[in-house]
């Protein structure tokens, strides 16, 4: 008997007990949907971590003088202390199709003071308009506006504002060691207050216009400490960083180009860990479903034991009987898969576009240095549904092996005699 006949028998028997088939396939289908959805949520959290861990302040790729880190010395500007043509560099970088935006920064550590209150912190000098395209920190203003280019204006984190007892409209004294050895100091107006959700950031970083910052710490306009990039595909950062290296080299600039996977390795670790979790979820879910399927198949084989005995008595090979049962289970698996896809597709679409926001229930939290909001947004994926589909089919087939073997090995005479 050709294999297609056994397939036919297998498939036909799926329809024999419609209700039982439906219940069994629902076990597999719901398991499938659960795996795809749960992994989708984990991916959602990972992608939020990547987005918040790199999108709030660091950017996805950073370019610095090779000597700049870890000391962050004021003198180790891009291109050495002579500096570099910043505008040209930024334009060249933004010409890459996958670089969304580039922003140059100047960092200074110093004091911010208002009346009796003084806090030690970092002041970052940026072009607010450019920076807003690279990171979201300037988009997280809770009050006020962005610093105007060239004006002695800055925005501070909510916690810093609280410590200084200052708010929008107040004046701060900023003191920082300058590159000429003097003690740079100047007055800046607080024009905005931001809330990033990251405690360190909110407590100790102020963001000012780059020009007055450079003036205060005695740097020239062509001396910057860092260029931060936003890219279209965060997970493609290492490859984009390699291209950026060439762009930087073409500017005759000796610089260190680092993708976020290098400066935020903890997020990469977490992503890898959650990929490992996928297989644990798969094993638990399908492990449970497998016993349900095995039970169904055992019953299906038992109630048709006379039919199989007759087939065997008439000369069918035991392997044919075995195949018919395995094909039946495989058919059940495919049916389940279709039901599963029909179940999960609209759920994925729903949770991707209108994720439930649990912030009111549990609040936001910081994890692996990235702020995470408990928003149950799922991320689409092609690999996960495919992998889960393969596991589902394998489960269905594996669950049928024991019932099929048992049936194929039973001598037909015993069954027909009712023993």
């Amino acid at each position, binding site marked *: 008997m050709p294999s297609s006949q056994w397939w036919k028998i297998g498939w036909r028997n799926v329809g024999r007990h419609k209700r039982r088939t439906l219940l069994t396939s629902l076990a597999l289908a719901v398991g499938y949907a659960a795996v795809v959805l749960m992994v989708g949520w984990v991916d959602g959290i990972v992608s939020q971590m990547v987005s918040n861990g790199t999108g709030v302040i660091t950017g996805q790729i950073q370019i610095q003088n090779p000597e700049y880190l870890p000391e962050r010395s004021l003198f180790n500007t891009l291109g050495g202390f002579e500096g570099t043509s910043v505008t040209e560099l930024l334009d060249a970088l933004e010409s890459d199709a996958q670089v969304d935006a580039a922003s140059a920064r100047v960092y200074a550590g110093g*004091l911010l003071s208002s009346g009796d209150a003084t806090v030690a912190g970092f002041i970052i000098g940026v072009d607010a308009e450019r920076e807003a395209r690279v990171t979201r920190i300037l988009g997280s203003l809770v009050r006020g506006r962005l610093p105007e280019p060239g004006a002695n204006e800055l925005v501070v984190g909510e916690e810093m504002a609280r410590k200084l007892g200052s708010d929008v409209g107040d004046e701060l004294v900023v003191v920082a060691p300058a590159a000429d050895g003097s003690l740079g100091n100047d007055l800046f107006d607080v024009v905005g207050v931001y809330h990033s959700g990251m405690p360190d950031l909110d407590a100790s970083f102020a963001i000012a216009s780059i020009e007055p910052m450079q003036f205060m710490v005695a740097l020239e306009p062509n001396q910057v400490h860092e260029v931060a990039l936003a890219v279209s595909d965060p997970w493609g950062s290492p490859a984009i960083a390699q291209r950026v290296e060439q762009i930087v080299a073409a500017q005759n600039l000796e610089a260190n180009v680092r993708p976020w996977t290098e400066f935020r390795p903890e997020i990469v670790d977490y992503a890898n860990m959650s990929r490992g979790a996928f297989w644990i979820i798969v094993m638990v879910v399908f492990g449970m479903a497998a016993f349900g399927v095995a039970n169904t198949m055992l019953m299906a084989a038992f109630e048709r034991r006379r039919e199989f005995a007759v087939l065997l008595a008439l000369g069918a090979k035991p392997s044919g009987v075995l195949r018919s049962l395995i094909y039946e289970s495989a058919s059940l698996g495919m049916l389940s898969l279709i039901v599963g896809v029909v179940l999960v597709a609209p759920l994925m679409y729903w949770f991707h576009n209108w994720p439930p926001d649990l912030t009111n229930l549990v609040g936001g939290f910081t994890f692996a240095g990235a702020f995470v909001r408990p928003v149950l947004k799922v991320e689409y994926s092609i690999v996960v549904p495919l992998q889960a589909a393969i596991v589902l089919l394998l489960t269905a087939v594996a669950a049928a092996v024991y019932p099929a073997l048992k049936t194929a090995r039973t001598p037909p005479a015993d069954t027909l005699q009712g023993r």
Partner: protein
Amino acid sequence: MNRSIFLLGAFFLTIPGPVLGQETAREIVDRVDRLWRGGSSRGVIGMEIVTEHWTRSLEMEVWSLGNDYALVRVLRPRREAGTATLKADQEVWNYLPRVDRTIKLPASLMSSSWMGSHFTNDDLVKESRIIDDYDIEISFDGVRDGVDIWEFELTPKPEAPVVWGRIVEEIRKDDLMPVWVHYYDDLGDLARTVTFSEYRNMGGRLVPAVMVVTPTDKPDESTTLIYSELEFDIDIDEDFFSLQRLRQTGRE
């Protein structure tokens, strides 16, 4: 008569040296520690700072009263003239003439550089006397480089709030002048060296007029202090060291 004079002379000569005990060692180290301060003092000091990136000179006027009060005002260069630092009531304030504001220095910045020099804010305003925080031992007694000296080793007392792991100090026997001081960090590595020279009589005392600080990790960098004026026991009291004075001093 002759005999008694001889005995008297012998008596004085023998005080330093063999009979030098822990008490005397403490006195000598304490004396050096307070050499430039006295009960109260006023001085004019030049400061030359050499770093990898820049070199600059400052001139400043310094007032002090005991361990608790100090006022420093920058006289030159003009761009920074008027910048002033006040230490009073365990607080440190800076006056910034450019923005006409005073700011209080947070405790976390006490160990950071003062005016870009190799001195820390803490060096400038340190409160406790060195003998209160350190146990002192003589680690060498004899002639070194042709000069009769003592070498004292200072180890912090348990619980003493100090930044150094160990201090070694060389002091000349004949006039009790410091030659150099080595500061070691917690790991026992030499962190910086201070050397003294140009011993001169100023304000009625013999003091080293020049003091050079070299950080060990940056041997090409240094800060040199040169005392050009120094007077002791001047007529000032605690009221002199006020925030009002800090601003006024800066504006003068």
